[in-house]
Structure formats: structure tokens, C-alpha cells
């Protein structure tokens, strides 16, 4: 029908009046729209990262889903990889009450925010097998005792270290500072410790590991922010010292996100790096990496008496509350979070599964990093505060951390100001328990 109309439109060129032609074009457009609507009956729209290799893996997983459910077709809607840009796009769609996309890939910190805004479909009615998943990841997806998203794959902050330059992963912050400084000097490397210090979420994830490593907590027992504790000040001072006192971190790290950090380490110019699991297969590839076979992973350091932690990140799958196909949408989530598909992702992308039992599977040992090391890091994973105002808490903290790290402010006063502003926000939101 559409083609016929278009053909008529073009055939009449030069013979009929332009008004008729214009009318036919408009008609064709409407027919097109109507057809799209009709197809929409059993088409699911999935919004997620679909660029490059990530896209190929996703397409492959979705092909398997379509083969198992011939009545459902899945359209991939590619969204930006950068978490904040992805967030903005979702806000525009969901706030406009769009019924598409039906299934959303969201960052772990977004779940409570979108859940509180009423944009996500509660998942409890589908009875998801939550006990089979990493408890920290499930907790991060609950808001007011209701589950709003399923963990897809998990990210954990970890320390990459050069096994040819160091004897062992440094356990404490002092050990790390000394060992990195020595190795850097002895081998004439430009950088010692590289990390993600740009003013963005990545900076908060590194700070969180330092904070816990020094024995601090983000939130106190009553739900108040306690980043300005003594441990917090020591943590921020240690990060600042790595740049200005020990000079193991170049000031450039204050503009670096994951990729610049990875390039510095991958080109063999650094001794240790704080990054996420995605870097492992890339660093292990001898074709593009100068450190292939010369690095290992471990937990971030800590001080005596405190425990090392790994900031929990990762991607979740959630359903748009305005979807017209809730059951089909959940079927897709069930497929993507099944053991088989999670192992597929491990194999192809090196992304860690959210199902705890999978770490014991033989398939898991095929991937580069030794499973026992990964398991040890995953067991130390801590989520960031689960609150709908997390994005703003993080932004307030990012600004003050960055002010201190660029020496516009002392660590103590910067953290004090951050805690004051964050507690004021929690109070305004009615989220403080006392």
C-alpha cells in the first residue's frame, strides 16, 4: 500500500498540480505511521548500550530470545554509553509517559530514582528468583521493599597491578604508596598510580573505596551522611597526597575517566590502576596491550583494622511502567538474566554475572582473570547509598572532592561542606530517619 502510494506520488511528478502531490506525500506518511503502529502489537523496544562489540553480543542474545519466542520481535534502541547522558535521555522519555522503550538497561544507581518517580514497573508480581542473585545487587534494586529491576551484570572497582614490577598486590595504603613510588623510580615510568579523578561519578566510586578502606562509611546509622568523618578526611588526603606529595599520580588524573586511565596503564606507563572489570580482556590482548601477561588484579588497599571494599556498579534491566507488553518485557528480562545468557556474556564480553552460583562453573575459568580472585573481589562489593536522590548526593560530593583535589579547598572543609549540603538535601526530601 505504502509503495503504491509512493509510486503514484512520483509518477505524477510534473503532470498533476503540486497540491495533489503534496497531499499524496502526506497520505503516504500517514499510511507509514499506521503500518508502524500495527507492527507495534508484538514488538518490544529495548533501550541499551548497543555500540560495537556490546551491540553484537546484545544482538546475538536477542536473536536467541526471538528464536525461542517467535511471536515477539525485539527492536534495539541504542542509547549513549555514558551513564549521565543515558540518564538524561531516559528522563525525557519516561517523564513524557512514553510507552516505549518497554525494557530499559539502567545503571545500578538509577533504580531507586526512577522507582520513586513512578516510572518503573514493580517486578515482584513476576516472582523473580532473587535468592539466586548477588544480595548486594538485589538490595540496590529495591526501593521501599519493592523490587524494580533485575541485576544483569555486575561491576566492581578493583586494583590492577603490574606483576612484573611488584611482588604482590599492596594490601595497605602505605604499602601501595611506597611500592608504587619505588617501582616507578626504578623502572623510570611516567606514572605510578592512575585512577579516575575527573569530576564525575567515577571519582565518587574511587573515593568510596578509600573511605571504607580507612574505616569510614558514606551513611551513618540514622541515614545521615558521614563522609566528613576522620576516616573520610584521611581518605581524601591520601588521594590528594598521591598527586601532590608522593607524585605517583599525575595531575592529569583529575581530568581522566575510565578510558584515559586504561590507556595509561595499557601502554605500560603506570604501575597500578583503579578500574573496572571491562579493562581485563583489553589489557590481556597482546595485539593491543603492552602489559599483556604482566598484570594481575586484586582488591583496593585498606588500613589495618578496616576492610577493603569494591564499589558495586553494574547494569540492571527494568520495565517501563507505561509499557503495553509487561509480560513479554519480563520474558525478555528472564531470558537475558538466565544462567546460560549470563555465561555467554562472561565469555564474550568479560562482564561478571549477577548470579552467584555461576562463579563456580567451569566455563567461568575460561575467562582471563582467575575465578577465585574475582570471587574475592565480588564478595567485598558494597553498593552506593540506595536513595532516589543519589544522583544529587553524588554531584554535591563530586564537586567538593574535585575542589579539594585541585587544591581550591582543604580536604576537611570540602568534606564538611559536602556533608552539610547532602544532609540538607536528605532532610528536605524527608529521607532522614530522625
Amino acid at each position, binding site marked *: 500500500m505504502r509503495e503504491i502510494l509512493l509510486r503514484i506520488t512520483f509518477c505524477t511528478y510534473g503532470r498533476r498540480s503540486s497540491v495533489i502531490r503534496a497531499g499524496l506525500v502526506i497520505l503516504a506518511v500517514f499510511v507509514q505511521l499506521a503500518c508502524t503502529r500495527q507492527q507495534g502489537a508484538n514488538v518490544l523496544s529495548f533501550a541499551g548500550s548497543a555500540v560495537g562489540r556490546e551491540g553484537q553480543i546484545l544482538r546475538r542474545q536477542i536473536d536467541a530470545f526471538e528464536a525461542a519466542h517467535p511471536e515477539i520481535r525485539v527492536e534495539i534502541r541504542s542509547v549513549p554509553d555514558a551513564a*549521565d547522558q543515558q*540518564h*538524561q535521555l531516559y*528522563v525525557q522519555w519516561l*517523564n513524557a509517559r512514553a510507552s516505549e522503550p518497554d525494557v530499559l538497561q539502567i545503571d545500578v544507581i538509577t533504580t531507586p*530514582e526512577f522507582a*520513586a*518517580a*513512578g516510572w518503573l514497573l514493580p517486578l515482584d508480581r513476576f516472582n523473580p528468583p532473587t535468592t539466586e542473585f548477588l544480595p548486594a545487587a538485589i538490595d540496590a534494586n529495591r526501593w521501599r521493599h519493592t523490587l524494580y529491576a533485575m541485576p544483569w551484570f555486575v561491576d566492581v572497582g578493583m586494583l590492577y597491578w603490574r606483576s612484573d614490577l611488584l611482588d604482590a598486590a599492596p594490601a595497605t595504603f602505605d604499602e601501595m604508596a611506597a611500592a608504587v613510588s619505588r617501582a616507578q623510580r626504578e623502572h623510570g615510568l611516567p606514572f605510578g598510580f592512575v585512577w579516575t579523578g*575527573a*569530576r*564525575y561519578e567515577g571519582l565518587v566510586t574511587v573515593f568510596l573505596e578509600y573511605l571504607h578502606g580507612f574505616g569510614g562509611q558514606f551513611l551513618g546509622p540514622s541515614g545521615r551522611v558521614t563522609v566528613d568523618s576522620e576516616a573520610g578526611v584521611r581518605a581524601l588526603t591520601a588521594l590528594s597526597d598521591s598527586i601532590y606529595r608522593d607524585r605517583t599520580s*599525575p*595531575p*592529569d588524573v*583529575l*581530568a581522566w575517566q575510565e578510558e584515559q586511565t586504561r590507556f595509561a596503564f595499557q601502554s605500560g606507563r603506570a604501575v597500578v590502576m583503579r578500574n573496572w572489570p571491562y579493562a581485563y580482556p583489553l589489557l590481556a590482548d597482546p595485539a593491543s596491550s603492552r602489559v599483556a601477561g604482566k598484570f594481575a588484579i586484586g582488591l583496593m588497599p585498606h588500613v589495618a583494622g578496616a576492610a577493603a571494599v569494591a564499589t558495586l556498579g553494574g547494569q540492571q534491566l527494568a520495565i517501563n511502567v507505561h509499557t503495553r507488553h509487561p509480560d513479554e518485557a519480563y520474558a525478555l528480562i528472564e531470558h537475558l538474566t538466565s544462567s546460560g545468557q549470563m555465561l555467554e556474556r562472561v565469555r564474550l564480553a568479560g562482564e561478571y554475572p549477577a548470579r552467584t552460583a555461576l562463579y563456580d562453573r567451569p566455563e567461568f575459568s575460561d575467562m582471563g582473570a582467575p575465578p577465585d580472585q574475582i570471587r574475592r573481589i565480588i564478595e567485598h562489593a558494597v553498593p552506593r547509598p540506595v536513595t*532516589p*536522590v543519589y*544522583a*544529587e548526593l553524588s*554531584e554535591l560530593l563530586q*564537586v*567538593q572532592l*574535585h*575542589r579539594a*583535589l*585541585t587544591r*581550591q*579547598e582543604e580536604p576537611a572543609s570540602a568534606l564538611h561542606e559536602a556533608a552539610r549540603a547532602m544532609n540538607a538535601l536528605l532532610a528536605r*526530601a*524527608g529521607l532522614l530517619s530522625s
Partner: protein
Amino acid sequence: MTPAATVTADRARDARLARRLLFPALAAITVIVGVPLAWMLWESLHLHDLRMPWLGRPFIGLENYREAIHDPRFVVAVMHTLFFVAVSVTLELAGGLALALTMHRVPYVVSGFSRTLLRVLILLPWAIPTAASALIWRFLFDGQAGVVNEILVGLHVIAGPRVWLVDPTLAWIPIIAADVWKTTPFVALLLLAGLQSIDQSLYDAARIDGAGPWREFTEITLPLLTPAIVVTLAFRALDAFRVFDLIYVLTGGGPGTATESVSLYTFSALLQKLRFGYASALSMIVFAGTLGLGVIYIRLSNRHLLTRG
């Protein structure tokens, strides 16, 4: 009917026709500008935070505005923006005037095609999307691999590479340089149009009277170019006041909030923090500011045109 009455009736008919002809334009402006503006005003008087639906959307009067003027980050962002407007527009005006005078002289030297080519080349930076050119400037000023560091170290201007984009003071240099590079051609074009409207015979007369080039510039070019300068200034100042993409790409407002502009802060309040009410209040304040500036400019340029005849 007396002739006078006919004239009056004609005038009334003309006025009616004028009103009718104006109506579509007014209606369009009302729909496109008025409705969103009224909506924004309404939002700015309410508590509306998408993340906290349990707070409802109560009317809170001027509370959002009170918070804004007591918000040090907003006040500092306004200061940053005014600083950026003052420095970049001044540099653009000076550079644009020099470019325009050069281009104005060129017609006597080169042929039609080269003249067009020259003008296209000069306008090129303006045609590149800001986000793309900002990325280029970010690479130029990169701390590790940036060309700027390499050149300055090579010339012994600085001892070692600087990390421009995370230094609270130095970060302004790439921002302002990028804006000047991008917008000077636009300023030049507007001023060139002004220059071309100046009657050539004035210069001929001045030359006969024995005036030198400097005298010609100060006594003829500059006074007659003033209306064009005022218009350009208005365009540029209002545009620079809304600066967003350039800073967003170059520094993201950092380090800390050392280069944060009003638009950037409003953007973060609206799309990152989802504080629709508060962000609307910030937008209303910026709107009132730019409207005020616009009115002052129009008054000034009107008076100027009147006194100059």
C-alpha cells in the same frame, strides 16, 4: 463626507488591517514563547521534584527564588557567566573589527572568486558545531598529548606541561580562546555589513581635506559603525550569556565548579537533579536578566539612532 473624515476613516481601516495582519505573528509568538514562559513561571512557584513524588507539588510562592539568591553556587555561576561575557565579547569585538576592516579593504586588491573564498574561509570556524570544535580545543589543551603544551614548552614559555582543564584559573583560557576563535568571524561579518553601508564619498571628502587613515577611522568609520557595533554587542552578549555546550564539553564546569556557567547549573538542576520547580526559577531569573539587558540595548540603540539622525 468631508475630505478630513475620509482620511480618518482610511486611517481607521488601515489600523484594523494592520491589526489583522499582525494577528498571525502575535498568535505564533504567544504559542511558541508565551505559553512555555507562563508554564515555567507556574512551575517556578511550585515545589516540583520528580525524585520525590511523596512531597507532592504544593504552591510555595517565591521559595525557589529565595533559595536561588541564597545559593552560593548559583551566585558564583552568575559571576562566572558575566566574566565570560565581558572577556570573550570584548576580544571578539576587537578581533572582529580588525577582520572586518581587512575584508573591507580586500575588494580593491583581489578578484571576485578569491574574495568569496576568503570570506568563506574566515567564516568556517563559525559554521562548525560548537560541541565538535570544543572537542578539538580539548585535544589541543590536553595535559598529556596536547599541542599547546608542546609548543609552549618548546618555546620555553612554561617549564613543564600544564594540566589546563583542571586548573581553576587556567581552565578559562581554552574556554575563552575557543569562543573567540569560533565567534569572531560572525562579529566580523556583522561589522563588515556595517562598513559597506558607509558612503564612500565621505572618505573621498576627508582625503581631499587632508585627513590621514587614523583620522578617517576615528571620525568617519567608528561613529558611523556604532549602530552596527551596538547590534553586534547585543547579539553576542545575550548569546554568550547562555554559554553551555562549549563549557560542557571542555571542562564540564570544573574543576569543582570553577568554570560553571548559569546555563550549566540550570541544566544540572533540571535534567540531572530533576528539580523542575527550582530549575524553572533559575531559568526565570536568567530570562529576566537577559530581557533587562535586551531592553537596555534597544533603548540605547534607539537613542543613538535618534541623536545621530
